[in-house]
């Protein structure tokens, strides 16, 4: 356990000294902040104003057609849909060096000869990446809580669906990072590792997007719907927790880490 925590602390510190953590967190804050305010918060408050005005003009015939503003329903799912696209760009930055750099610098040779198992090494590195990612989840929680502070009296955000959305975002990130780890383990070139991770995540997103099209039908549609990470998280963003989605994310994460471990071990038989 000492070895695991030592490795975990080193990885976490390296994210800040390198300084990938700052790059990732700043980019995420700027992009997500901009989308949140410009794309969601302002239109939402506009809508609220319009709705209030309609209510004042009691006889307005449009009255019945304009539903009451519901932050959780209107904003949360599409906000997280947008944020998950940012993840596609940022996860490769988080994972590209994790193992590739050790291979390139040769420091992996020492890891292989220390009394620490490959699994411990991978889990420590994964945990560190997850901690950095969790900071973005906290930022998202702040976005969800913000309307509560702006509007007097609060009561805008429904907490259960909001927590489900945060869970979805966390699971999506955790699975994406584990997929990135595979590519970090198979190459010693960080750019190749980042590019492959990006390509895979983009593909899984495009597939989910395509599955919603009418032109895709039958088996292809079912397949596309079920493999797409973002499709799986959409339900959670809406506040719908399906066991199948939770199992899916769990399997992807564990499976990807298992492949990473196998790939790390392969030097033993490959020579």
């Amino acid at each position: 356990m000492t070895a695991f925590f030592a490795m975990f602390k080193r990885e976490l510190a390296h994210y800040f000294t390198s300084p990938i953590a700052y790059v990732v967190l700043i980019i995420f804050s700027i992009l997500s902040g901009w989308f949140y305010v410009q794309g969601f918060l302002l239109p939402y408050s506009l809508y609220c104003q319009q709705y209030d005005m309609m209510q004042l003009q009691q006889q307005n015939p449009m009255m019945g057609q304009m539903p009451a503003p519901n932050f959780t329903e209107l904003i949360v799912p599409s906000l997280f849909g947008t944020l998950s696209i940012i993840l596609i760009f940022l996860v490769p930055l988080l994972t590209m060096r994790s193992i590739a750099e050790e291979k390139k610098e040769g420091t992996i040779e020492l890891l292989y000869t220390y009394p620490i198992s490959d699994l411990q090494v991978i889990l420590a590195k994964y945990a560190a990446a997850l901690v950095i990612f969790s900071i973005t989840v906290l930022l998202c929680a702040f976005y969800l809580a913000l309307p509560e502070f702006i509007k007097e009296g609060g009561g805008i955000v429904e907490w259960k669906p909001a927590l489900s959305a945060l869970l979805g975002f966390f699971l999506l990130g955790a699975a994406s990072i584990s997929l990135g780890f595979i590519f970090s383990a198979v190459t010693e070139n960080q750019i190749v590792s980042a590019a492959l991770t990006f390509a895979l995540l983009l593909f899984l997103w495009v597939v989910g997007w395509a599955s919603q099209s009418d032109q895709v039908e039958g088996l292809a549609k079912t397949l596309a719907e079920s493999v797409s990470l973002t499709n799986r998280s959409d339900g959670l963003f809406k506040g719908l927790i399906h066991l199948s989605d939770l199992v899916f994310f769990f399997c992807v994460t564990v499976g990807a880490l298992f492949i990473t471990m196998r790939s790390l071990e392969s030097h033993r038989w490959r020579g």
Partner: protein
Amino acid sequence: MIEVQNLTKNYGPVAAIKNVTFEVGKGEILGFLGPNGAGKTTTMRILTGYFPATSGNARVAGFDVFSQINEVRKRIGYLPENVPLYTDMSVKGYLSLAAQMKGLGGTAKSSAVDRVIEEVGLTHMKKRLIKKLSKGYRQRVGLAQSLVNNPEVLILDEPTVGLDPKQITDIRSLIKHLAGDRTVILSTHILPEVSMTCDKVTIINQGQVVVSDTLSNLTKRSSDFSEISVIVRDQGKDTASIIQSVNGVSEVNPSRTGIKDGTTKLDVSLPEDEDIRGAVAKAITSADIELLELSSRQVTLEEIFIRHITNEESGLHHADPDEQEDGLSETQKEEESE
């Protein structure tokens, strides 16, 4: 302490090492000698559990490197050839990490780190970032890292490569000092390094052990008087044939080192069971040649090395160590008759 038996490692169809067998006793320093690509690193990596051998057995500190690799790893210190370090960390930070990776925690960790920092002479550098250190100091950090778990066995892969002469001397004396009662395997292709630091030598070439013996046995021929060198001022006389004519002289070769202003240096092989140096001296002086020097010649490690490597390449290698000695002198004869 280290027993290696018939170790073979194949990279696909290529055998990196074939039937490597040697033994190192407790407290001994073994020089693992061979040209680049001979299989030194491969052997060391097997001993450290980096990868398993294709076949054969190896035991380190009483534990099998295949079935009990974790026990082995706890008891060894390893310094890979390219000294891989986390260069973004400080010396002390890195050594703490290494100590924790080797399972030391709390006060055991801090005292181990302080101990190795002092041992390798890094006290005034301990707060520096490793990337700001010179190659020589990095090498010390690498050594410190290998020592931090107070290992019984030290495995050092070319610890002096790429250093300047001063640093090389420093690291060598450091290794000798650190060895203490530890068992050390030190790979190198620099021969003086072995004569300076090691007790035993194993020479490996093209994946096979060519010779394995103590340093003194290797550098000393069977007796002190069987190999001599003679320096004469012969003014053009054929000293070689005069010496050759002495009863019992097996070979006379003009030495490649130093023929100047009328003097000639000759390497002479004499029988091992009979001291005929006096007869040789007499023959030279009676032919009216000035005898300037007659000394017994120590075979240098370079000669042994070259002899064994060429031996190997000309296909005269024999697996049996006794036959090896024969093969050795055959080649030497060949070499000297050139």
